[in-house]
């Protein structure tokens, strides 16, 4: 049995701080905005949808107490619609899609909605606590470091320089600006409106088309101080003693932007599609997760992608387009070198550096961007991959129908 993607939508992304356009919009509202849009676009028989799987990383406050069921209830899809919230950190949105696909392929469920949401302006990153960073019994033997230090460690170990990262970031901004101005996001991207129906935000708020590598070169490194004061540079070198010092190349301009947003995908089997009268846009060919060491943490996309390719019986060169989450510039840079993939196949419409990374939603957002772009270029195969905190990678391979 195949798992088909009938549609994939995402909200616009607002800056995730007190000046962001979506600050006053709750994550429930963001999610319901997409559920409404999906219903309207397809005159969806919502009573056929069995479950809503949402990725969400910081599950406290607005996002606590199972936001998936909260949004399901609020959506008016019917009481039958269940909801489950999951957390695979930055891979959550894609994990939701993969779990939905696995339910469908196994035959246990016929039609689901999967995606993710994160209002980073309202629910601060890290406010959910957790043992990984602050329980000495875990963090000390685990050689925990913050992700920014991991990113700088990758740069230091593999020799990526500040200009490498800034150049990549500038390209991300340029590509996103072109994509936005050419309307490439229009198919999947949904405007966020207030309770009166007035538009709150109809564009991705974070894109800065004027960005140049030269301008980025002027920014101060973001993680130099915490690396020194928190002892984390030393922790990283304890784990990787071949590294002489941590080269702090990352800053606000070449790391993913903190934003608000949500994304969903409608996933089901052939019969469900027939009942809905919907033609699938793509099918999910394979998926994988792969764990890496928790200190370096962010090099998982390459091994996860290899595993997904292997399960699909494919080579890296068989993939037409890649979406590699730009958590930090060094992540896609390392991915491209590790897998031998050219930059013109990767993140052709920009990525999290330019558009932003709403933690729980991004995986599903990348999926919608990829399907749109495969259709636009009339290409067939695509791979979405994200690096994940704690040392994981996730990858999904899709194929247009």
């Amino acid at each position, binding site marked *: 049995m195949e798992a088909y993607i009938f549609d994939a939508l995402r909200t616009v992304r607002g800056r995730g701080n007190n000046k962001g356009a979506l600050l006053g919009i709750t994550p429930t509202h963001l999610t319901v905005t997409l559920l409404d849009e999906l219903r309207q676009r397809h005159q969806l028989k919502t009573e056929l949808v069995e479950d809503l799987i949402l990725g969400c990383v910081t599950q406290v406050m607005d996002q606590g107490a199972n936001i998936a069921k909260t949004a399901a209830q609020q959506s008016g899809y019917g009481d039958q619609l269940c909801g489950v919230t999951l957390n695979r950190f930055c891979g959550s949105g894609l994990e939701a899609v993969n779990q939905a696909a696995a339910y469908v392929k196994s035959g246990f469920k016929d039609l689901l909605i999967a995606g993710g949401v994160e209002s980073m302006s309202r629910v601060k990153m*890290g406010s959910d*606590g957790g043992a990984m*960073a*602050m*329980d*000495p*019994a875990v*963090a*000390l*033997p685990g*050689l*925990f*470091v913050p992700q920014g230090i991991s990113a700088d460690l990758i740069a230091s170990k593999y020799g990526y320089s500040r200009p490498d990262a800034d150049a990549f970031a500038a390209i991300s901004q340029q590509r996103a600006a072109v994509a936005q101005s050419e309307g490439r996001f229009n198919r999947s991207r949904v405007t966020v409106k207030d309770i009166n129906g007035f538009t709150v935000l109809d564009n991705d708020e974070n894109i800065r088309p004027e960005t140049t590598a030269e301008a980025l070169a002027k920014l101060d490194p973001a993680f130099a101080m*915490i690396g020194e*004061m*928190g*002892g*984390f*540079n*030393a*922790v990283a*070198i*304890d784990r990787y*003693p*071949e*590294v*002489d010092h941590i080269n702090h190349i990352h800053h606000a301009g070449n790391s993913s932007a903190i934003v608000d947003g949500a994304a969903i995908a409608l996933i089901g089997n052939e019969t469900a599609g027939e009942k809905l009268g919907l033609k699938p846009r793509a099918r999910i060919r394979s998926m994988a997760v792969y764990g890496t060491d928790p200190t370096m943490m962010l090099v998982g996309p390459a091994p996860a992608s290899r595993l997904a390719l292997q399960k699909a019986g494919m080579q890296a060169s068989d993939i037409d387009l890649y979406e590699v989450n730009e958590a930090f510039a060094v992540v896609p840079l390392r991915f491209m070198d590790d897998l031998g993939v050219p930059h013109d196949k990767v993140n052709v419409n920009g990525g999290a550096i330019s558009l932003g990374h709403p933690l729980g939603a991004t995986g599903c957002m990348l999926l919608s961007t990829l399907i749109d772009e495969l259709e636009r270029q009339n290409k067939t195969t695509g791979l979405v991959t994200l690096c994940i905190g704690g040392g994981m990678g996730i990858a999904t391979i899709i194929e247009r129908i």
Partner: protein
Amino acid sequence: MTTSAIINNQLSVDIDSEGIANLCINQVDAPTNLFSNDFMQAYVEAAQALIADPEVKGIVVTSARKDWVAGADLKFLGNPPADRELMLKGILQAHQAFRALEKSGKPFVAAINGNALGGGYELALTCHYRIAVNNPKIKIGFPEVQLGMFPGFGGTLRLPKLIGIQPALLVILQAQQLRPDKAKSDGLIDALVDSSEELFPAAKKWILEAGKSTQPWDDPKHRMPGGGLMTPNGVQTMVGGIGNLRKKTHGHYPGAQYAMSVIHDAIELPIDRALEVEARYFVKAFYSPEAQNLIRTGFFFVNEAKKGKAKPQGHEFYKVNKLGILGAGMMGAGIAYVSAKAGMEVVLKDASQENAEKGKAYSEKLLSDLKNKGRINAEQLEEQLARIHATADPLSMLDCDLVIEAVFENPQLKAQVTKETEAVLGADKIYASNTSTLPISTLAQASARPENFIGIHFFSPVDKMPLVEIIVGEKTSERAIAAAIDYVTQIDKVPIVVNDSQGFFTSRVFGTYTGEGALLLEEGVPATMIENVAKTLGMPVGPLAVTDEVSLTLGIHVMENMPKMSDSTRRMYDLYQKMVKDHGREGKKNGKGFYDYPAGGKKELWPGLKDLFPNNVDYLDKDTVGKRLLHIMALESYRCLEENVLRSTKDGDVGSLLGFGFPPYTGGVFSYMDYVGLAQFVAECDDFTQRFGARFAVPDSLRKRAAEGQKFYP
């Protein structure tokens, strides 16, 4: 009316006419007041009686000794009960008893007249109020993590509840011992008085006027200063604290980690349940091999050595009133400084008056630094400096009790000054050489009285390095050994006694460390990795940096003087030659060694190393690199023991810790083999012999010990 209620060998109790009890700790059979099982029992019984006595309004806990309570009785800690669960139960029972005192409704005041450290300060924290004499010599705090433990009798919980998580963690993790004024400003104590006489009246006044008998942790309205664990402040303190703990300890000090765990797991719990969590972690820390190693070597062995336990019996104390030093170079000048500091008259002789004065100027500089820091006053500076007499006259050695020769490492020169000095020195006086490379028995050939000829090997810088290696030549008498030990204890350093051999013990073993570093580099391990792995294991300096310090040219010189070079020594020699001859990289002294030494900047590994010694990160994993560096030192130490260069494993452990910074948590070179597991150690050395060369060959006797399941320490 004054009643004398209880007197035993732990304490005495008096109750005055106003109902204020003086519970006076006075452990008459012990050198000082210590926190022990017997003490706890006596204290609780006395306190319970006072609580039951309706006449008593409050209890002042005083001390009749110089210390208030100096800390836990390590004799007990060094001989832990085999039943660990019983120990846990014992701690929990004691907590119950002390909690009953805290909640009795009667105020307890700690009246601190002397050191309140470790268990002593934990006792003070069970009191409702703490007053200390404002004497800068008094220390208050928690030194436990230095011995691999942490405050395990409530201190890890009560202190943060009292002063906040972050400041309490600083005291605990940095093993802070604070002066009373600092302890007051940091909140560890509540009030200061100027003299011991004022303590009891001040305590009494507080009881009669305020007398609050509720602990903060029993007060539901109390809020921890700085906020709780899950506040942004608390989270930041923990996350950053963990990072910095690894930076500092590289994960080798379980006590420090468990202190953080206690706070993480239990600080928000009700105190009685929290104490249970603390006790479980304490038992785990206390029985950890690291804590046992630190207690055994770092405390017991070092203290025994420091007290001169190694001194041969039947010799009177050899008091050195006047010390002669030949050669006012860096070592001679340092020896002059530490000896004058200990109150000896010092004659510092060099070939010229000018050089001798230069040597004396070194003491002046160190003393001025101390004066600038406020540690000594101008009078003390003058006094100490006046004890050093710079001279160029050999006759000045005439009435010295001991002469230490510290001239250049040149056998002819040394023979000449030996003869010159013995001509004037009293026939029964001891003559010592501070040589670090030349055999004592050879040097003694120049002596007319070889029985009085001995090696006293200081380490550089002399004022900082606590170890002194005493080297026994073929003809050195027991009396000379006894005298040398007495001298070293007089200058408050730690002696170990070793028999004559090339490099003695410390230089010989440490040479294998620098050598192994060079071989790793030559084989293709990146220099950065070698240096970082060494530091991660707890060595103070990487092998390549240390080689730079002593200089590659000295290394070449030493190897050239070896009767025969082994294959691996030949490889080191070639490597050093390549560095020195082909690239002019002699070491730190010419600013170019394995490292570059930019003027005014931090040293950095020489980029040219990568071309000279092509490397591959994946050639060896870091565990193998680390084990090669430490195993080779342990193995060489065992050879020293087998060849009778070392007279005991204790000397080896103490010497390795204090002489070249072998990681303290291992307990030293012999203790390290137990720590790794002797069978595993032998198996790994066998593997290394196959892969890396014969220098890892295991002596038969060591193999036998391993096969028999023996340990160096039970």
